[in-house]
């Protein structure tokens, strides 16, 4: 056995992390790889901490020798990287020496690097090397899988996004479709209705010739229906013109435009309604004059139409002011007003609040669309039996 202790070069090749301790447990010889971590002549107990076996072994020669059949794990005490070796003690009885043949416990390239270990430090037969290699292969495979997983996730996310977009577009289209459907339904009804009444009146007229009665009355009714049909067509055109035509800004005087529109209405209807203007000094503004005309015509004619016929001082007020950096206009009347449930629907397309007075249900809808186009807003307040006021705003445009 002494020969073995002396043939350290052979042991070095087989177990480069070996050491030999004497009876006093002093490390008297270290392998070439372990020598970088352990000085010769240092005490075994001061150098190593006994990780395993966890109990039953003491730092004496006899205790270790009698446990020679066990696997030992020793970790370096003064090493922050937890460097440890795993192996077995072989007692060399002739000299009371203990030979410890071991391999370092490292499970990854990182641990190798931390401890400055190279492949060359290991014996060629060391299974730890093979283990490290397998771990490396597995790690790389895992990394690749993770990368693929990530890109797959990203692709799924992209698809999900795309799906959501498509769904939004789909919903938009569905809404446009259903709006269009509703539009066609309402328009065909509203165009057809007066035609059918004319048709019916004509049938009466043909009958009436025999009996020689009120033909004149039937014809006047037919004329009314024709006017209604014409109004419906005009309003549909106005709606489409607003939707289609580009905004055309020009300078105009709001006061004279309002007067002009009110007078036209007034002349047409010959109804005693007072028009009260409350305007600032400067009423010239830069906006789309023809759209504003459509808007005022709708609002003023509503105020006239829904006046209280039983009062003598029917009135329409029109005010202009600048609030929060934009124009604010209010068209108010002391007319019949309306209930809350009607009020909240008056800007809907084809909505008519009352059957008592004729209408297409388009005027306020178009007004709202006009203001949408011009970047303004519109809202209404009303008290049943007291009157209604419509407020609309317009941005102040620079010429």
């Amino acid at each position, binding site marked *: 056995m002494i020969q073995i202790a002396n043939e350290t070069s052979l042991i070095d090749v087989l177990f480069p992390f070996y050491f030999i301790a004497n009876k006093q447990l002093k490390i008297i010889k270290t392998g070439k790889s372990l020598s970088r971590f352990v000085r010769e002549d240092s005490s075994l107990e001061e150098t190593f901490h006994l990780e395993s076996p966890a109990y039953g072994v003491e730092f004496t020669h006899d205790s270790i020798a009698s446990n020679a059949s066990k696997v030992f794990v020793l970790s370096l005490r003064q090493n922050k990287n937890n460097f440890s070796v795993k192996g077995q003690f072989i007692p060399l009885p002739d000299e009371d020496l203990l030979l410890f043949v071991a391999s370092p416990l490292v499970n990854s390239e990182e641990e190798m690097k931390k401890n400055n270990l190279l492949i060359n430090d290991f014996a060629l037969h060391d299974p730890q090397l093979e283990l490290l290699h397998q771990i490396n292969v597995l790690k790389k495979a895992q990394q690749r899988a993770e990368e693929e997983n990530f890109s797959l996730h990203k692709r799924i996310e992209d698809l999900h996004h795309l799906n959501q977009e498509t769904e939004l577009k789909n919903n938009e289209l569905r809404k446009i479709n259903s709006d269009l459907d509703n539009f066609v339904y309402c328009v065909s009804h509203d165009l057809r*209705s007066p035609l*059918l009444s004319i048709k*019916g009146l004509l049938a009466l007229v043909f009958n009436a010739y025999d009996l020689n009665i009120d033909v004149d009355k039937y014809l006047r009714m037919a004329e009314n229906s024709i006017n209604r049909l014409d109004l419906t067509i005009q309003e549909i055109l106005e709606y489409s013109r607003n939707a289609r035509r580009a905004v055309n800004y020009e300078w105009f005087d709001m006061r004279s435009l309002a007067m002009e529109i009110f007078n036209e209405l007034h002349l047409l209807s010959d109804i005693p309604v007072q028009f009260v203007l409350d305007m600032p000094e400067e009423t010239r503004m830069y906006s789309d004059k023809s759209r504003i005309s459509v808007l005022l015509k709708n609002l003023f004619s509503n105020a006239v139409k829904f006046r209280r016929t039983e009062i003598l001082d029917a009135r329409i007020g029109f005010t202009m002011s600048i609030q929060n950096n934009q124009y604010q206009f209010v068209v108010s009347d002391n007319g019949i007003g309306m209930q809350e449930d009607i009020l909240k629907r008056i800007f809907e397309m084809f*909505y008519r609040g009352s*059957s008592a007075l004729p209408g297409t249900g388009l005027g306020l809808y178009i007004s709202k669309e006009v203001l949408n186009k011009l970047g303004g807003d519109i809202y209404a307040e009303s008290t049943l039996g007291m009157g209604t006021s419509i407020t609309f705003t317009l941005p102040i445009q620079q010429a």
Partner: protein
Amino acid sequence: MKHHLRFILIDDDDIFNFLHQAVIKEVIPHAEVLSFQSSKEAMEFVSNGQVSETIFLIDIRMPELNGFELIHAIQNLPEEAIRGSRFYFLTSSLDDRDRTRGLSFKIVSGYLEKPISIEKIKELTGF
């Protein structure tokens, strides 16, 4: 044969009410014809009074209550309030969905197209 001599016309377009009344009178000069421009007022009338043995001609597209809402409300009245009455939709709608929906009400006897003709009134009343 028992003839219906009372009609109630409900249409927001007064010209149609006038026209349909004239057609009815052509056929049955002594018929009693009530017309309502407001579906709400018509509903009030129906729920307050006895309207048995009456032919109702009801428009569909109206402000306030539309024809479907009106029929729905009438259907919920006690049966004796409308005993022997018949209900027809009379409309200018060409929409299939309106026809299907109109005929799905169990108290509705038919779906007629405007303007109503003398022949149709004769057919409905047996005059």
